[in-house]
């Protein structure tokens, strides 16, 4: 497999009209008689990096999956309201807590995601290489994904998501299983992707990570959205008691 020239690598097609904002109205989710998300109203707009915070069981991951369309809410609506909303399905991507790579080479993992989108082979190859360059994985392209370290695997997952050129990228605790060095590498990759104009919506229970990456905080507690503010304000002076307790480490995450 020949590496394409630099010129080709830059030629990543831009998306069409924006699919954002994402609007959640009176969103509820219950399972087994328990209410897990309770009347969430939220508008996620382009631009800022949004981090969802909250103790364990607050409903962060569930909310993220509903936003991404993996799970349907019990009631209420999730709607992409932008002019390009019809394209919403293919203009977003998600990275999970575990990398969930396929048993093939690093390159083939990225290429697979592009093949699903039915891109022509030449375009797939150049995009996949670019994605690996950006995430610093080009040197590992031919390696079987299964033999990489946890941090490297998670970066492959990021490269795979990035190669899809998503307008919105959801990340569910992407560094939960990683050591500090690997966490840092993944965070840098996320920041890089955000710089390219991709909207980031992520969950974490790592407060340090939230401080480093978040521009706005959505704080969930017991299935309710209790606070949504710019990150600097939130960390300086949270309004809600639960948020204050959470920041002081009094609430288990």
């Amino acid at each position: 497999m020949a590496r394409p020239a630099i010129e080709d690598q830059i030629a990543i097609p831009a998306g069409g009209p924006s699919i954002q904002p994402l609007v959640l109205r009176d969103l509820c989710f219950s399972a087994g008689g328990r209410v897990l998300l309770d009347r969430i109203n939220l508008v996620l707009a382009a631009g800022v990096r949004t981090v969802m915070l909250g103790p364990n069981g607050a409903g962060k991951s569930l909310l993220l999956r509903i936003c991404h369309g993996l799970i349907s809410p019990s009631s209420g609506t999730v709607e992409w309201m932008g002019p390009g909303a019809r394209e919403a399905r293919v203009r977003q991507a998600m990275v999970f807590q575990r990398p969930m790579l396929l048993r093939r080479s690093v390159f083939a993992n990225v290429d697979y995601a592009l093949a699903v989108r039915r891109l022509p082979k030449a375009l797939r190859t150049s995009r996949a290489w670019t994605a690996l360059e950006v995430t610093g994985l080009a040197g590992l392209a031919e390696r079987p994904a299964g033999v990489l370290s946890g941090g490297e695997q998670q970066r492959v997952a990021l490269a795979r998501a990035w190669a899809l050129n998503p307008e919105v990228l959801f990340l569910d605790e992407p560094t939960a299983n990683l050591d500090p060095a690997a966490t840092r590498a993944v965070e840098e990759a996320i920041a890089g992707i955000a710089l390219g104009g991709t909207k980031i919506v992520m969950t974490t229970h790592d407060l340090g990570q939230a401080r480093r990456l978040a521009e706005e905080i959505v704080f969930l507690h017991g299935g309710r959205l209790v606070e949504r503010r710019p990150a600097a304000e939130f960390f300086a002076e949270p309004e809600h008691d639960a948020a204050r307790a959470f920041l002081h480490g009094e609430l288990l995450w």
Partner: protein
Amino acid sequence: MREMSQAFASAVDLVARADPELIEIVQLSLQVSVSAVSIAALIGIPAGAALAVFRFPGRRGLVVTVNAMMGLPPVVVGLCVYLLLSRSGPLGGWGILFTAPAMIVAQTILIAPIVTALSRAVIEDLWLELSEQLRSLGVGTARAVLTLIREARYRLLTAVLAGFGRAIAEVGAVLIVGGNIAHHTRVMTTAIALETSKGNLALALGLGVILIAVSLLVNALVYLTSGIARRYSGA
């Protein structure tokens, strides 16, 4: 116990002499069972994957049925296939009763449920693990099935080997539809049954030893080649 030592002696003797009849029988056993397991894999793996991934009414019932069919009695399968292929049966016109293809048909019916059920279990586990990721990437069900089969390929090999083990070891079905005709449909298990009925217990056991050895060899071969392939793909 005297039979045991005689059995090993007769097994060693048969192998050492490269007994032409033995070679013929071993060859036919392998041809029939490898053919049956190949067809069963071509049917069972996609069927198992579909059963793991697709949700439809009656799916649970079907899963239970396929699982139960892993225990199909070979004699009953043989009898059903006999009735189908008999000159007076619906497929009598094929004229394949008492031939190797009839034995392949019977063994395929016997082991397809095994391959299907084990594939279903393996792929369902994998699907639970990967379904969110694949759906997130926008993978459709058909592609998901193919991806999962590829992902599970080494574990599916175990399912296929389980089917092979059952095929090469069963006697009831091939005896009925093959007829144990010398030089035509005599395989290792029917030869063992025949020698037992002649009271040649040592020879029968000797053939049994060879059957186990052949089965071991096939498994070892598959294990080694898949191990090498696995190392190269890092799976």
